[in-house]
């Protein structure tokens, strides 16, 4: 088969070295809050102009994969998602680390990221052109409902008061409207201030809302940040494999969700991992354990967000429409090199495409040993570094990371102010996750809604536009299911005899 020879072409020493280098650099970049996959890829683009297209793609793809996975380190170890895709990893990863299971959480995240990554790439190479049509089926209204679906995850997430969680989400949604409106073109709620002109940048909000409260907790008490692991326990690889094997359906389901959500341009890894998390919780026999250090929570989010890498390349390569922001940068690099995406990528240019896919596979596979190695040291060092060093170092990284997102000093101000406010709100019982969810899903919901509204006006039937399309009806059904099933579950818990085995 021709395809295999192209895939094997990825195994030249240079390409292998690029994959290893790219993954390692990507992991470090992803682990640092604020340094995103998009930025890493953008910085490297000029370097790749001197390379062959295959080598350039392999390097960029490897960095991207590594960065998405690397985001889980900071999520697990300091409760701060390194990338938005890792938000849901904090839910169970950090509680695991607090209990002294940080090593197990890192091992699980590595294994599930590899598994999810492989699934996404395989979907790209086998079903790419077919799956790409999904991207075109989703209209504005479907995006609107998808965002609403994402918001219903809040009811699944919230420990404590659901009412306060929804208040938090409403605040996040309102915050998302600050700055320039895509539809309408107005500058909203900026109050003439330069600070607010660019709106609340999602990643800086993420860093502020998650990381500042962690720092505040760190300085309050003299005891250790995380519980130290028992001596000589190693990486608990066998235990990790055991848990992965038991969670194989969870990993598979999450990988499928990750791949499909990533095909939708603009939806991205954060939605994919949130939806996978809530699905994993719903399918679990033990949903109360979620949010308190349940290994399946980590498996779900990490396999799903790494599946988005391969999934996001499907519309990028097949249709020439970037699935995720890093894909947009890679697509731009391809255009500058004189490549046009589209059917040619699986026809005339298929040699490049399949070599790239081979490289992506290799990069995903080498992530396992590299990730386990780095993870081992990361966990040990976070546990053993004294607080007088850990606190200033984390604070420093949040500040430089926030600045680097858009080279904007005002974003740093927004980050620290949001962090301080987030801490106050947290004391009142409003957790950061609903706020961040609102902030991320707000623009998607708003654009979908207003575009749908305009379409409804044009066709003369708003109802048909919002409720009449088959895909919309499917998503609405999912929304109803995800809000009703928790109710049914709590009823079932009160009537244990009827519980299924």
């Amino acid at each position, binding site marked *: 088969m021709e395809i295999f020879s192209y895939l094997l072409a990825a195994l030249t020493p240079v390409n292998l070295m690029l994959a290893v280098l790219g993954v390692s650099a990507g992991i470090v970049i992803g682990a640092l809050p604020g340094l995103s996959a998009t930025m890493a890829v953008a910085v490297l683009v000029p370097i790749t102009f001197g390379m062959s297209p295959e080598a350039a793609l392999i390097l960029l793809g490897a960095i991207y994969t590594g960065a998405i996975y690397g985001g889980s380190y900071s999520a697990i170890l300091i409760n701060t998602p390194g990338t938005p895709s890792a938000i849901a990893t904090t839910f169970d990863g950090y509680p695991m680390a607090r209990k002294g299971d940080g090593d197990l959480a890192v091992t699980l995240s590595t294994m599930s990221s590899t598994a999810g990554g492989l699934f996404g790439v395989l979907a790209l190479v086998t079903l790419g052109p077919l799956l790409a049509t999904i991207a075109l089926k989703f209209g504005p209204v479907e995006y609107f409902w998808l965002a609403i679906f994402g918001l219903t995850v809040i009811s699944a997430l919230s420990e404590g008061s659901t009412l306060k969680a929804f208040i938090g989400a409403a605040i996040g949604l309102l915050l998302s409207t600050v700055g320039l409106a895509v539809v309408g073109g107005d500058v909203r709620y900026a109050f003439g201030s330069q600070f607010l002109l660019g709106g609340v940048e999602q990643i800086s909000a993420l860093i502020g809302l998650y990381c500042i409260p962690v720092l505040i907790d760190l300085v309050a008490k003299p005891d250790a940040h995380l519980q130290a692991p028992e001596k000589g326990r190693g990486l608990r690889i066998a235990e990790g494999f055991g848990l992965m094997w038991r969670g194989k359906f969870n990993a598979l389901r999450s990988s499928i969700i990750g791949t499909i959500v990533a095909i939708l341009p603009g939806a991205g890894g954060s939605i994919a991992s949130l939806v996978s998390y809530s699905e994993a919780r719903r399918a679990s026999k033990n949903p109360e354990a979620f949010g308190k250090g349940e290994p399946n929570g980590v498996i779900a989010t990490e396999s799903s967000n790494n599946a988005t890498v391969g999934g996001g390349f499907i519309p990028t390569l097949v249709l020439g429409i970037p699935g995720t922001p890093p894909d947009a940068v890679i697509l731009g690099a391809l255009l500058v090199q004189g490549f046009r995406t589209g059917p040619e990528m699986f026809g005339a240019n298929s040699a490049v495409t399949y070599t790239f896919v081979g490289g992506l596979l290799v990069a995903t596979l080498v992530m396992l040993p590299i990730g386990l190695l780095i993870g081992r040291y990361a966990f040990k060092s976070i546990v053993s570094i004294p607080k007088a060093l850990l606190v200033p170092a984390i604070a420093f990284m949040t500040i430089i990371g926030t*600045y*680097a997102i858009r080279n904007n000093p005002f974003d740093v101000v927004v980050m620290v102010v949001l962090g301080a406010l987030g801490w106050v709100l947290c004391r009142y019982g409003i957790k950061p996750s609903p706020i961040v969810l609102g902030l991320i899903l707000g623009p998607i919901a708003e654009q979908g809604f207003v575009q749908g509204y305009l379409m409804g006006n044009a066709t003369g039937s708003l109802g048909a536009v919002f409720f009449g399309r088959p895909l919309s009806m499917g998503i609405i059904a999912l929304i109803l299911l995800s809000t009703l099933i928790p109710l049914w579950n709590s009823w079932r818990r009160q009537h244990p005899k009827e519980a299924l085995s």
Partner: protein
Amino acid sequence: MSNQTQPNVPQRDTTRSDRLLALTMLAIGFGAIWFGRDISPMARVFPTTMAVVLLVLSALLLCKAFIRRSHEAPHETGSVPRRLLLVAVILVWGFTLNWLGFIASSVAGVAVLALIGHFQGWTPRRALTYGLALLATVAFFYLLFDVLLDVPLPAGTLWQRL
């Protein structure tokens, strides 16, 4: 911090703070509608709807806080002054970044936070090693961004004027 409720720790009574919270949120909701008057209709729909949602939810919370007592936040232990100091330092750090420049504000911020984060006594040896380690961290990231990644870090408007 998200989602860890420790069942054994008694929860703090939040009834009174809930009333304050609900009132603040009501104010924010009304504020969003008031300051959104001048926005074009197409761009106003969404924020106004969200503001109304916020108003309804806060009104519910307000009613609840007058009917039932709630215990929805864990007791916080540890040093309150250190918490407040940390918040103050980070705020000052963020606000002075553009003015003092990256290096000056970061060195100062890192030093003060090391003092806040340390609970035991300081020996000269410890002060020296910690100081060097933190300086090395700042220097490393400065080099990484400014030299290797070509991200120009703020030089400080204060020094430009001198």
